[in-house]
């Protein structure tokens, strides 16, 4: 249909408004930041000295960089699979003939609405050294676990918080994807004698793949860039012992505590590259972007 040229014109005219806005308000700021990573920058005065790749060398030599790397990867490895699977299963359950599904949906959406400061307050209340969780575990198992100042556990508390508040978001996305799956596919599967689980695995999962690609990618972006919760729980220090220091929190510390915007941007672009590579590998592995592509 149509000549190649017409397709090109059509394609770009549909993209035009978006591209204009992205150029001015996304690309220019990123380009500006891109150049800063080769400089030693004092943002206040605007003074800068060219230092080439020195910012990168400093980072690779920095134990805090590796700590933030370890924490962030641990975080992503744990949170992304869980939130994706839980969101998909919940969406499929709600989309099956369950009574009161809309009421369920509305209630499940609520954590997304709860502000992150309220969420953090609730979790601090639950997990502090004299809080509900600690006392409960003490009564049942007879041990007192210090969640917030134990380096191994502080990050886990943040992980749970994140899963809790992002699942409804991705669940809604999956649900709208499920609306587009043709009924006939399920009917065909029924005729072949497939049970509910088989149908989920053979029809729902593959048909949802493009959406899964989106959810996994945005999950990776969100988790690799995790900032708010880590900042609030550790008061911005990344402690105890760098255990809640994430990439984004370290970027923030470099930019505003060390006043070293050059190194902060260098780290930001390293993070960008890591996210891109991981996303690429994960989605190649899932073969997520190949359906009808």
């Amino acid at each position, binding site marked *: 249909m149509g000549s190649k040229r017409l397709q090109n014109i059509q394609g770009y005219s549909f993209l035009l*408004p978006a591209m204009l806005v992205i150029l001015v308000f996304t690309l220019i700021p990123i380009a500006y930041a891109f150049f800063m990573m080769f400089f030693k920058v*004092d*943002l*206040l*005065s*605007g*003074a800068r000295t060219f230092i080439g790749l020195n910012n990168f060398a*400093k980072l690779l*030599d*920095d*134990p*805090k960089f590796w700590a933030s790397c370890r924490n962030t990867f641990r975080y992503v490895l744990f949170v992304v699979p869980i939130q994706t699977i839980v969101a998909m299963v919940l969406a499929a359950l709600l989309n099956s003939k369950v009574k009161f599904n809309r009421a369920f949906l509305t209630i499940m959406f609520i954590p997304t609405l709860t502000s992150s400061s309220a969420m953090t*307050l609730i979790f*601090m*209340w639950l997990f*502090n*050294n*004299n*809080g509900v969780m600690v006392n409960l575990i003490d009564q049942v198992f007879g041990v007192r676990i*210090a969640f*917030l*100042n*134990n*380096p191994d556990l502080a990050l886990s508390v943040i992980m749970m918080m994140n899963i809790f508040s992002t699942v409804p978001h991705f669940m809604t996305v999956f649900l709208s994807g499920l609306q587009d799956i043709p009924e006939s596919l399920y009917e065909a599967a029924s005729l072949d004698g497939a049970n509910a689980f088989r149908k989920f695995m053979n029809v729902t999962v593959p048909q949802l793949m493009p959406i899964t690609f989106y959810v996994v990618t945005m999950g990776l972006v969100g988790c690799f860039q995790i900032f708010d919760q880590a900042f609030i729980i550790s008061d911005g*220090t*990344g*402690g*105890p*012992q*760098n255990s809640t220091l994430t990439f984004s929190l370290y970027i923030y*510390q470099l930019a*505003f*505590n*060390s*006043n*070293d915007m050059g*190194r902060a941007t260098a780290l930001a672009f390293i993070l960008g590259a890591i996210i891109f590579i991981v996303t690429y590998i994960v989605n190649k592995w899932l073969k997520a972007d190949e359906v009808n592509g």
Partner: protein
Amino acid sequence: MKKFAAILAAASILVGATACSNSEKAGKSSSNKDPITLAVWGSSPSESKALEATVASYEKESGKDVKIEVIQDNFQDALTSRFAAKNAPDVFYLESYAAPKFIKSGVLADLSKDIKNQDDFYQPLLDSFKDKGGKLYAAPKDYSTLALYVNKGLLEKAGYKVEDIPADWEGLVKFSKELQTKLSKDQAAMIFDNTLARNLSSLIASGLNPVTDKGKADFTSNQKAIDYMKSLVDGQKAGYLKNPKIDMGIDSAGAAFGTNKAVMMIEGNWVLSALKQEYPDVKYDVLPAPTVNGKKETMTFNVGYAVAKDTDNKKGAVDFVNYMTGKGQKQWSEMSGTLPTRQSVTKEMKIDQDPVLSAHANGAAYGTVWSSGVNLPTISQAFDNQLLAAFNGDKSVEKAMKDAEKEANDEIARQE
């Protein structure tokens, strides 16, 4: 196709028109009489009202306009953005903690010859806004110091009197230990804070300056300082010193104190307004912060007015700062409940005779101001991060201090 083009055209015209009208407006307002812009952070209603009233008095007296811009949160980030965009306010609040960074960047106007009657200020406050050459870059507006708050009701219930409380740190720790045996498990004899911001003066009194002359971190060269930190760690382990957030699940020290969960706390005068409004039933006394190693010590947190170097209205800005820290200071301090930075105003307001405020105000003369060169943020961050390991028992205090020193000095080396 046509319909879409029409929508797009309409949208772009709309957008273009409003953008134009906006920049026009901005152009007009800046050409008209040029008010002095003052950037401040969000604070309590009484402080906001006090600021508005004092600024109004200045406007009335001088016939000039002042535009107050309140930056609610992330003040440093917002201010940095405005400097980066060459859009800085004429006058702005500056914490002494952040002052070295601004001074080093060279974006502040030199006020050495502009601020009047400089001898009248408490000198430690003034000094925290000076560079190494003694040039002055901001005028102190108000300050807070730490003092020892005692919950009289709880103390008397446990069978003690305020006079029983020792004035030195070692005695205070022993007293807390004894006191804790008469309290319930969810109560604390004393609340402590493990950050460097609260303990710097105690370390200095012990004989250790964590920030060396060369701006490097030093946490290890003095055994007494390590012993001081150990007293905090031991106290927490035994339960007579408690951290409100981690050990009690309480949002702030003031709240723990106000809800009768703590007998003593070493806090700044900022808790007073909360104690007055939220916890009016609690009876308390305020004593000077304990001596450490036989020396008087407290932390001072100091805020001033700074003027941007690039302002087109330095004369007006200086005039305004002089009013706010001079003639207008009494009005500001009285309404806001903050402590005046001038000794004459302190005397005039009889703060040195006030039973609550005098403990704080007397500290201004000897307190350690929370400010120590451009590397302090890096040094204190490493300290706070590593010392937590000592508190949860993963490292000894010696090891944590050593690691903190290394972490800070490595980072400082990378910044150079």
